[in-house]
């Protein structure tokens, strides 16, 4: 018999409807699982226990209806999503005790769907990092191997799903922060098209890059969640007014004749051989499923990393100007205002945040602006054009999500450039605003490998169709992390 955490969201829903299990029982199971695993993986920064039981009991009283597909399902939120009355720190000392006065739009939508919030998950400080090691509070571990990082910046959310604490968690993706940890943890993570999901209530890093997305164990679950969180929001002018389809409708349809492009730049040097082999095997699977495979070139994506760091750091610098300790958050009182600013921000922010704020400031200073910021804007346009040309030829692009499997704790933290290069395959999508889906496609030494499915703008439905077809033909998504009793060798 399956453990509860092996059941899909749909199976759990049916059990609620049939009253085989109560929402309260499942909520308790989630907290029991958390108590068991948390000392090892340290995925959570705040728990929502009392409120979770209250909402569970409320849902039980009302009963879960057939069409309430997510009612009672436990979930976790990355700690940069604002939750009214529950601390939201972005894993930074500067917001250590910050209790938001309002909910993010996504949080409101999830509450309306009656999902049960278990807690807030660890992350890289202000989402600046790729390993969850820049968190001020703790280092989260990979559920497949506790000596490895969970990836980042949404590493806590990914680890919480992989460890079986919650079937659904939420992350934000500015340069790969949903997809890379999903790859490292053997789960499914979606960065939607820029504008698909409201950013209101997300602590901003890069205004033109950030998107909130679901992290789940299967593609079908991921689509169910996107149905709930997608759509225009009057509080976010960049959210799209485009109609939101039912993303589960394409799931189960075959992919015969779907044109899949494989960018040569995604399959070249710098990619771990075992990762390349797993992706090659995935390509064969798609061929067997009837897809048409075609090699594609995206000549400018190799410039994505420097372009991204100039632009996102400039936007991040501006977005973080308000965090000065004067109205909320950590503050150091000093004799003068200038000293107060300097001490508050130098002690409130970690090294990586300060590094990026300085980089952002440097690239916007008038004498540097043309050489850095303006050049980066031009290159961003070239990268966008690369993708537009590619999508005139094919329907979907695929490649690895990350160049390697999860690496060791503390292995790269002292070498920021190595860390930045770990996002070279995910960053181009953020620069272009395109959607990307990471799905499990293999293992190396017991560590998951992720396949990145890249869609054209607002084509999440087709991405889910392709991802689900792959899941149906393989069983990588069904493997369970070693720390919860899975086969460590995958």
């Amino acid at each position, binding site marked *: 018999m399956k453990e509860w955490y092996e059941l899909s969201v749909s199976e759990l829903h049916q059990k609620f409807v049939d009253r085989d299990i109560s929402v309260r029982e499942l909520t308790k199971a989630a907290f029991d699982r958390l108590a068991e695993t948390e000392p090892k993986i340290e995925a959570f920064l705040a728990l929502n226990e009392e409120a979770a039981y209250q909402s569970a009991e409320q849902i039980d009283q009302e009963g879960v209806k057939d069409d309430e597909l997510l009612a009672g399902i436990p979930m976790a939120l990355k700690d940069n999503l604002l939750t009214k009355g529950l601390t939201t720190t972005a894993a930074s000392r500067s917001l250590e005790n910050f209790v938001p006065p309002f909910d993010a739009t996504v949080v409101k939508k999830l509450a309306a769907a009656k999902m049960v919030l278990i807690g807030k998950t660890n992350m890289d400080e202000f989402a600046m990092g790729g390993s969850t090691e820049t968190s001020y509070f703790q280092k989260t571990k990979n559920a497949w191997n506790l000596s490895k990082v969970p990836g980042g910046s949404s590493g806590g959310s990914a680890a919480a799903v992989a460890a079986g604490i919650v079937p659904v968690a939420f992350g934000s993706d500015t340069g790969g922060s949903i997809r890379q940890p999903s790859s490292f943890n053997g789960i499914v993570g979606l960065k939607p098209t820029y504008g698909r999901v409201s950013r209101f209530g997300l602590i*901003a890093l890069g205004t033109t890059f950030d998107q909130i997305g679901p992290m789940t164990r299967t593609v079908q679950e991921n689509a169910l969640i996107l149905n709930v969180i997608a759509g225009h929001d009057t509080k976010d002018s960049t959210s799209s007014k485009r109609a939101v389809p039912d993303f589960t409708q394409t799931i189960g349809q075959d992919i015969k004749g779907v044109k899949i492009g494989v960018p040569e730049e995604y399959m070249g040097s710098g990619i771990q051989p075992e990762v390349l082999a797993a992706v090659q095997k995935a390509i064969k699977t798609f061929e067997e499923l009837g897809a048409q495979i075609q090699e594609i070139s995206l000549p400018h994506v190799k410039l994505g990393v420097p372009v991204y760091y100039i632009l996102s750091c400039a*936007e991040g610098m501006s977005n973080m100007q308000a965090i000065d300790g004067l109205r909320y958050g950590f503050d150091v009182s000093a004799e003068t205002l200038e000293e107060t600013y300097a001490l508050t921000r130098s002690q409130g922010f970690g090294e990586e945040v300060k590094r990026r704020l300085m980089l952002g400031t440097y690239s916007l200073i008038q004498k540097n602006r043309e050489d850095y910021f303006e050049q980066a804007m031009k290159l961003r346009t070239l990268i966008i054009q690369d993708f537009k040309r590619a999508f005139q030829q094919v329907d979907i692009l695929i490649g690895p999500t990350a160049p390697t499997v999860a690496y060791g704790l503390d292995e790269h933290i002292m070498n920021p450039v190595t860390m930045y290069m770990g996002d070279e395959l995910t960053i181009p999508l953020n620069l272009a605003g395109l959607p990307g889906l990471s799905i499990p496609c293999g293992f190396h030494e017991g560590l998951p490998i992720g396949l990145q499915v890249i869609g054209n703008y607002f084509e999440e439905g087709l991405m889910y169709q392709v991802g689900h077809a792959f899941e149906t033909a393989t069983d990588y998504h069904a493997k369970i992390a070693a720390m919860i009793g899975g086969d460590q060798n995958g």
Partner: protein
Amino acid sequence: MANVYVKKIQWFVYLPLPTKTKLLSSTEQVNQSTIETILVNQYPDPVTWGYPGGLATVNHQAVKLGVEAAKIFGCELGEVIRFERKNALDPSVPGGYEIVQEKFPIGKNGRLELNDQEKLVVQSVGLTAAKGVEMIDEKGRRRFNYDVVGNPLLKIAFSLDQSQTIVFASYLNQVKFMLRQLSWVDDALLDQLTFELTAVIDTKQVIHVEITQLQTVADLQLALAFLQTKTQLISEQNRPLQVWKLIFDSVNQKYSLEMIKSMPSEYLLLFDRDIPDIYLKNE
């Protein structure tokens, strides 16, 4: 050889816009700024108070009023308008940046004429958001009223030649006359006009000198004289940005200028991408 300084002086006129909500949030405008309300800051607005997670959304009524004002001054309307963040840590701007329209304002190249000889170029007409109001409490401490932060302001920028001597009283009367033609402008609103003078000195690097919180014609006249005579000295001190404030000592009935900020670098400008481009033909 001495540096050649090209000095340009700008006169900014700010008019509060009578819209229901703030410029970049759906929170209603608050106009109280007394010492009683300042201690409370009772109308929190997550967007304009710089709370994490808040996103700017444009008040389109403010844009509409701005377009009407730009037309009054004969400006060429921009096809697209954008807002920029002028980033600088300052307690009067809780978001950490002022909202300005420097590159893509609502209108450009207008005019203000007294007669054939006396005229000023209206460099731009755009929108900006009110800063927090600084006050000194009973213990002599600096306090800020943030309730007014983000209220929409019309910003009219006039360009003066570096040595141009003008009589502000005449021009100000003309500005008021022009604005009075707008159906939504009344005398009470015109009483709330505020001003700023800026000198931009272009040598090897751009140097700004701003004089803020000017309230009366006498303030303006004094500040202009200061800029025309003193900016050479300021530039030689190699200070790229200085902000001065005009102080009126009501006991002795005397004015003085006090430098309130000096920065080693210029403002960092960045388009506010929370706000998509606004195409005026669609407004």
